[in-house]
């Protein structure tokens, strides 16, 4: 019913609402992504030459960025759920916050292209095992970080 829709501030058809909302989400993702990328670059500049580079050309700074970013992404659903459950954030704002922090900030902060670039050297030198270990090690550590974060902050809190 239209009056009800008007009272709650929602438009009667979701489709009429969709384009504007998508643009809003896209805008916050762009802003978050710019900040995340900037943070990754600044961290790389700050750590340049200060971290030991382990055997096989593993970049510990890049690994920390990617695994740390994955951990924070794993915390996000539980965090947003708690914010909404506490009544401080509505459903619409939850979606905006989620886009800003998830695909935006953390998506821009973490990167696969830099990991792929790191494997080019070993691949060229026929050290395929080093390249594969580098790739798998990064992804396995990141997935483990997501799993740990989801356990620490589940979406459905234990009663």
């Amino acid at each position, binding site marked *: 019913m239209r009056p009800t829709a008007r009272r709650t501030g929602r438009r009667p058809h979701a489709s009429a609402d969709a384009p504007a909302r998508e643009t809003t989400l896209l805008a916050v993702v762009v802003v978050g*992504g710019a900040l995340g990328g900037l943070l990754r670059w600044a961290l790389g500049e700050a750590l340049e030459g200060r971290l030991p580079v382990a055997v096989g050309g593993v970049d510990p700074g890049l690994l920390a960025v990617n695994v740390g970013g994955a951990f924070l992404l794993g915390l996000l659903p539980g965090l947003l759920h708690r914010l909404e459950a506490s009544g401080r954030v509505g459903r619409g704002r939850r979606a905006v916050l989620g886009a800003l922090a998830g695909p935006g900030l953390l998506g821009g902060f973490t990167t*696969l292209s830099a990991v*792929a670039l790191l494997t080019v050297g070993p691949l060229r030198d026929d050290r395929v095992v080093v*390249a594969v270990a580098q790739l798998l090690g990064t*992804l396995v550590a990141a997935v483990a970080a997501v799993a740990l974060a989801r356990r620490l902050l589940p979406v459905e809190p234990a009663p």
Partner: protein
Amino acid sequence: MTAWVALLVAAGAGLGAGLRFVAALHLDRSWPHGTLMVNVVGSGVAGAAVALLDDPGGADRAAAFLVVGLAGGLTTLSGLAGQVHDLGWRRGTAYGATTLALATATCAAAYLLLG
């Protein structure tokens, strides 16, 4: 100038993140085609840019925009890890392995062909 480099990194990363978001929104289904695509394309962009640019370290403005910014923002490891986790053991492993294989192959091919 460091300020220019920072601005170009931010612009590239913002653009990359926006493109990644649109691709994921329209192409990600139970199998995340969109995220897979941007991870592969972004890794290819990084490989090509590093091969073609003189100083790919990031001091160079083109490298700051293309490699650190655009390719870095277009690709995501946190999103990939989240999807692998949520897809479960079998599909997650298949999706993760596919992404790593295609992204690395594209990056290496672009670098070696253009370098």
